[in-house]
């Protein structure tokens, strides 16, 4: 989709379906976590689905994507197989990474989703490298990071190098206001992460990350800029995770009214409301969207929990093999 001008009602319904699928997947992940079927440190992005879907929509098939520790939505939006994703979260050999990566280190190379990471800001340099590798091929690399990553040295080193080498990278900041448990006002002096771009001459925009169409419009321009060989850009998406930092985080560092305010801005609700006002969606159709997503997720759970575990021999053979 090259421009938001072309978006049809059917497109919007499709975007909604994808957000709903991500939400259904992650809600089920939470459930499985509490049942003991998924372990580890698992970060869900409930409330941030609009960014994931908009970014994925702005990219072409050959483009690359890098995620963060909170990347289930990024990968699903990109078209990753949710069966293999669920199996990976459940640590099974039929998962994308044979159970060796888990939630924080997902890789779905078949859809050019090259990696999530447990290191804050860790994939930004990787994205630069992939962009360097394909600099002349007209490909674009999008990389996610959070507001917390903007305080890591690698982020600043990367701004400099991306600008210096005019790399075809779109830096997608999911600014959800918190670096783990610390609000932005306590971890940095800048109001907006995009302010760091100015000294390097990197064009940057800050958008409402819960407005899918606004993110899509900004992303489409950014991707076009990169594809035209004009270098890096940043799209800072102001959003909010409606759940804690990780599954099990009671998130007591946030005020109830703040969470309530952001619930009002839930991106799925917003697009649903818009489609209803355009008479493109009614209550029944909305339920169908939800039901279909739940069914797909149930299939994924069956696939995942039916999977085997990798043997120790196969695991040690993976180090160099």
């Amino acid at each position, binding site marked *: 989709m090259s421009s938001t001008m072309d978006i049809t009602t059917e497109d919007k319904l499709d975007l909604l379906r994808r957000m709903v699928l991500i939400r259904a997947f992650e809600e089920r992940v939470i459930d499985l976590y509490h049942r003991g079927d998924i372990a580890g440190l698992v970060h869900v992005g409930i409330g941030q689905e609009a960014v994931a879907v908009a970014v994925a929509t702005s990219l072409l098939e050959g483009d690359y994507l890098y995620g963060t520790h909170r990347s289930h939505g990024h990968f699903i939006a990109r078209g990753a197989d949710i069966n293999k994703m669920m199996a990976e979260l459940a640590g099974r050999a039929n998962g994308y990474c044979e159970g060796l990566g888990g939630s924080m280190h997902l890789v779905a190379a078949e859809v050019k989703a090259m990696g999530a990471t447990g290191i804050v800001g860790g994939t930004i340099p990787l994205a630069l490298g992939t962009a360097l590798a394909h600099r002349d091929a007209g490909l674009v690399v999008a990389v996610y990071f959070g507001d917390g990553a903007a305080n890591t*040295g690698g982020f600043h080193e990367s701004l400099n190098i991306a600008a210096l080498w005019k790399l075809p990278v779109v830096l997608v900041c999911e600014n959800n206001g918190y670096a783990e448990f610390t609000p932005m006002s306590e971890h940095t002096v800048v109001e907006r992460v995009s302010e760091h771009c100015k*000294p390097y001459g990197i064009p940057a925009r800050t958008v409402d990350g819960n407005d899918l169409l606004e993110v899509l419009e900004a992303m489409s321009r950014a991707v076009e800029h990169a594809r035209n060989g004009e270098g890096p850009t940043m799209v800072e998406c102001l959003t909010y995770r409606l759940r804690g930092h990780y599954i099990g985080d009671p998130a007591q560092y946030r005020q109830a009214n703040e969470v309530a305010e952001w619930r009002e801005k839930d991106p799925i609700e917003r697009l649903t409301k818009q489609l209803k006002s355009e008479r493109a969606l009614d209550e029944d159709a909305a339920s169908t969207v939800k039901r279909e997503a739940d069914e797909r997720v149930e299939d994924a759970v069956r696939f995942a929990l039916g999977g085997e575990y990798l043997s120790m021999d196969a695991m040690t053979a993976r180090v160099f093999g």
Partner: protein
Amino acid sequence: MAGSELSVDTLKSALHRMMLIRRAEEQVIDLATSFDDLIRGHYHVYIGQEASGVGACMALGPDDYMFTTHRNHGHVIARGGEPSPVIAEIIGRTTGYNKGRGGTFHVIAKHLGVLQTSAIVGGCVPMAAGAAFSIKKRGTDQVSLVFFGDGVLEEGAFHEALNMSSLWKLPLIMMCENNSVLPEGRRQGEYPSSSFAATQLADVAKAMNVETHVVDGGDVREVAGLLTELAHRTRAGEGPFFIESRMTRWPGNRGSFPELIGGPHQMDWTWDPGTADARLQDWLTNSDPVSLLCRSLVEEGAMTREEVEEIDAATRKEAEEAREFALSSPTPSPESAMDYIFA
């Protein structure tokens, strides 16, 4: 600028320090090139940058902290360090400030508040922020001053430290010494580089709400004036500050293997740059901080040529004595190799 108000006595003492650095560094270069085994690796001298270090240190009080880089010899002397233990350290003698354990890259003088010298690019900025944090926690009115080169802005740790010092309003002065600026660019203009995308180094600090200044690092009055004002404001809780001190490279500064073009500096070159090697003339005319200060003091009638040359002779003698001191000092015994590993 407050710098013009410096008294003649203050300027004389600044000139003395600057010349002392120049003469001590000349000894270092001579030791490195005359002996095979004294300074075997690469090393970095401060010739041509004396005004920046001396001017900045003039703003410090005895209790303030200072941090520096691989190009530290001049900073330590500017801070009041004696050439003898500095040169002794550079050639690894027990009488050196670090008892021969640090060498050219790591001269440290705790009694002068020189708490750390790191050869890791940008390595000292976080530590200087840490010292500033300690000052803030203790509630004293000290200042933490850190010198570093322009390459430091390419290192992530610098940006991490910049954010935290701004966030916590630390009493930190970041003195970025950019020694590759053309003479006409020392006061204004942009800084193009093949390794840094921002054309104004200060913009990076500005983006993090840090007050920034650009100063002509070849003019000791300007540096001292600015730093005195900023040190005062830092003590009042207005820090941190970022300064880009712009200097023009001494032609003998060939990376890490410097060369004394035409031998040690001669005062005749200062008075008449045309008498120097052709490679030095432009620099002596427009950029050498020592020559610029000498000529302006004489032109203003603050000093006579003879008085300037007396200071020079005194520093030359001091540097020669420092060399002899260092050469006659013992090297650490192999039996002492295990000392200082743990406190």
